[in-house]
């Protein structure tokens, strides 16, 4: 069992342990989606499509937004996991947001976010990863910015975040700044 | 040009009579100042010998017009002067100067009182002293409350200003960009046909106390200034809808009442005033706030200002209706302060001005 995930806490939300894992060569993306849609409780994760992700900071900006909305009691979606997926989106339409940023039936790589809170505090890391490996048929690889880079589709990112041609996105740090600003200001700009 | 003759600080008691009539309140006051016992001690508190007022009350739903207000002042001013003299027990000869409000305010009422002031000054052969209405409010507020160097919020029917002292002038930090707070409250009282006795503002305050639901109103602060006319237009519209049959409902389903509207108007306007006052306090590093002017009697405004001031480690100062509502004693007090530094107003210069900015007055009696 290789521990190549990330787990961390955000300063403002000390009671929420955040787990990030990255899978490639995924073969059962459609099964995952159908289980998710049918509300199977074993699938209480946020499954993100790496094509629209430029960096880990980009994902955590969405997680931060989701947690602040929940703290204020103004989540737009039913669960915190769906709120994380929706918080990746710069626009207000929930359906469109979940469709664009959630994993697809044909996704071959998935970034999974798991929150551990209150009673189901993460007892043992290996147990969590084993459960996750059972759900996702694919290779769990060490999650990092460099691992994400090859999975990103810059054109999809430009389309999803409506970034004009003039603004070049080759510099990932600049891209992250622009994108995390946009999702933080969703509904306000 | 008002003249200033060189005079040493007086060693004896000085007495002044003050006449105020810039708006619908006619006031006459007589005050006595005592000299400082020695060089570095403070001057003992002034003695109020008389401070009487007669208010021109208009029927509900009506404001006061300059012509009618001046007519009221003309018919009562001499009697008030007589009454004040009688009450003070001071022989006319003991009075050192006759002070009057030179502005700002309504033209005709100011002039009607100025004519009386000129006449008695000529008859008694006592010098005339023109006083700025706002400086009168500030100096009286400082005298009564003991606040040494406060930021002053001057809120009345005709004025809304945030003022701080600097280099012998009262500088205006922020002000209304259109109508004054008192004017806004009075005009909304007319919309609701609230009686004007004792004052529309007072009656709005009583209704506001029974208000339960906060109705969202435009909040228009621009830097250090505030704008009221937008709020008035908005809430007038609301009131006309509600009393025109189109009821409005709070989120708990109950109907919005007159009390709710008065409550929301006060909460919004007073929050704006406290905000620009706090900004001025932060800017000049002061922790004292003095509220003067008719609206200063409003206890909710005093309460809100007090909470802000305490949060900044300071305190709020306010006076009761004897002083915060327009009165004659404040004109006598500020006039006497100027008189004691040699300030005199010649007959030619005793013309009243509707536009008399607070920062035009040179405060010779202050050198802190």
């Amino acid at each position, binding site marked *: 069992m290789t521990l190549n995930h990330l787990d*961390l806490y955000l300063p403002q939300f000390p009671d929420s342990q955040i787990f990030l894992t990255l899978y490639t060569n995924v073969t059962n993306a459609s099964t995952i989606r159908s289980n998710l849609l049918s509300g199977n409780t074993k699938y209480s994760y946020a499954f993100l499509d790496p094509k629209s992700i430029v960096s880990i900071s980009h994902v955590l900006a969405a997680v931060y937004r989701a947690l602040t909305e929940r703290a204020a009691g103004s989540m737009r979606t039913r669960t915190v996991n769906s709120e994380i997926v929706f918080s990746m989106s710069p626009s207000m339409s929930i359906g469109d947001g979940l469709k664009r940023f959630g994993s697809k039936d044909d996704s071959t790589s998935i970034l999974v976010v798991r929150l551990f809170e209150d009673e189901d505090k993460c007892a043992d890391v290996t147990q969590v990863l084993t459960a996750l490996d059972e759900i996702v048929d694919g290779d769990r690889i060490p999650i990092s910015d460099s691992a994400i880079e090859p999975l990103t589709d810059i054109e999809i990112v430009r389309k999803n975040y409506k970034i004009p041609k003039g603004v070049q996105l080759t510099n990932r740090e600049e891209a992250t700044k622009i994108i995390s600003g946009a999702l933080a*200001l969703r509904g306000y700009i | 040009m008002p003249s200033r003759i060189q005079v040493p600080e007086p060693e004896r008691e000085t007495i002044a009579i003050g006449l105020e009539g810039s708006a619908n309140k006619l006031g006459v006051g007589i005050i006595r100042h005592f000299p400082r016992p020695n060089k570095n001690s403070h001057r003992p508190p002034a003695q109020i010998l008389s401070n009487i007022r007669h208010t021109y009350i208009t029927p509900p739903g009506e404001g006061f017009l300059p012509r009618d207000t001046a007519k009221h002042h003309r018919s009562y001013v001499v009697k008030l002067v007589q009454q004040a003299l009688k009450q003070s027990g001071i022989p006319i000869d003991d009075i050192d100067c006759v002070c009057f409000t030179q502005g700002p305010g309504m033209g005709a009422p100011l002039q009607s009182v100025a004519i009386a002031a000129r006449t008695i000054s000529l008859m008694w052969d006592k010098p005339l002293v023109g006083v700025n209405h706002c400086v009168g409010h500030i100096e009286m507020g400082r005298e009564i409350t003991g606040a040494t160097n406060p930021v002053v919020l001057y809120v009345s029917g005709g004025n809304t200003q945030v003022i701080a002292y600097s280099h012998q002038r009262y500088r205006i930090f922020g002000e209304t960009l259109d109508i004054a707070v008192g004017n806004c409250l009075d005009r909304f009282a007319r919309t609701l046909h609230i009686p004007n006795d004792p004052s529309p503002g007072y009656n709005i305050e009583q209704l506001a106390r029974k208000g339960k639901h906060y109705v969202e109103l435009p909040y228009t602060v621009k830097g250090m200034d505030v704008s009221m006319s937008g709020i008035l237009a908005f809430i007038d519209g609301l009131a006309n809808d509600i009393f025109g049959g189109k009821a409005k409902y709070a989120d708990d389903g109950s109907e919005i009442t007159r009390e709710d509207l008065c409550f929301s108007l006060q909460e919004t306007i007073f929050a704006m005033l406290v905000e620009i006052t706090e900004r001025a306090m*932060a800017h000049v590093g002061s922790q004292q706030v003095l509220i003067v002017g008719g609206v200063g009697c409003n206890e909710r405004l005093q309460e809100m200002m007090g909470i802000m001031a305490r949060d*900044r480690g300071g305190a709020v100062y306010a006076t009761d209706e004897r002083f915060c509502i327009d009165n004659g004693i404040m004109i006598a007090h500020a006039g006497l302060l100027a008189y004691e530094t040699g300030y005199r107003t010649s007959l030619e210069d005793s013309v009243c001005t509707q536009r008399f900015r607070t920062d035009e007055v040179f405060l010779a009696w202050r050198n802190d």
Partner: protein
Amino acid sequence: MNDDRKKAEDSEALPALPKYLSEALDLKLISQGAEALVYFSKAHPYLPATLSSDVIHNSPISPAGYILKFRPPKPYRHALLDAQLTKHRTLSEVRSLYKMMLAGVHVPMFVAVDPRQGLIWMENIDGPSLKKWIWGQEEEIEKKVSDEDSRLTMREQTVKPTLVAVGHEISKLHFMDMVHGDLTTSNLVLRRKDDGSLEPVIIDFGLSQQSTLPEDKAVDLYVLERAFISTHPMHAEEYITWLLEGYLAGFGQGKKTAKFKAREIMKKLEAVRLRGRKRSMVG
């Protein structure tokens, strides 16, 4: 950035920062204005130090740390009004920061916002305020040369280029119809670049607004002139001319309406100088 540190620490009546914030991070209060408390924080709002830099090498980390601007609840205001104002003001400041970043104006990078709590996280700008930097330059020049002419030439070599750059930065702000609202020599900071050069950055957009009126932009410049006169009375004339030189030179980068807009603003500035911004303001 920390001019008011002394004043802030003296006043004991501090409105409470949300408990979870003050405990989780070691925040240092920098200044307490009328509306907001400004803290310095080493920690990033959602990139904890546990993440090693090579794992997140593409994330916009600020080596100089972060500024947390907190608009505390104002107990004197009705709770509903207070919540509405805090959220509205927090968002309008953040929108300004974001729009200007996209337009290439040097402003602190906006990192995160929690509108209901009135929290804005942004990058901290490492470098002296324009006010402090100029005082430093003047002192150095006075030590090096004694006669006024050579002092002037030295100022032209060091102070002038910086002020021209500052003027240019402000022109970008105004050309995109954004008005700062509180332009002072403390709200202009000089960021030390890796090559040692100084780059002007505009900070504190608490009173900023969208406005197309030349009058509002002229008042912005007039407030800055007043600030120069009060903090650098000796050479205020000179500094203001250099600053306006930079302002006009690059105004609108030659775009179509640039010339006209610049001329309008200068005409209004003349009027505002005469009128004294409608009333006398101290400092």
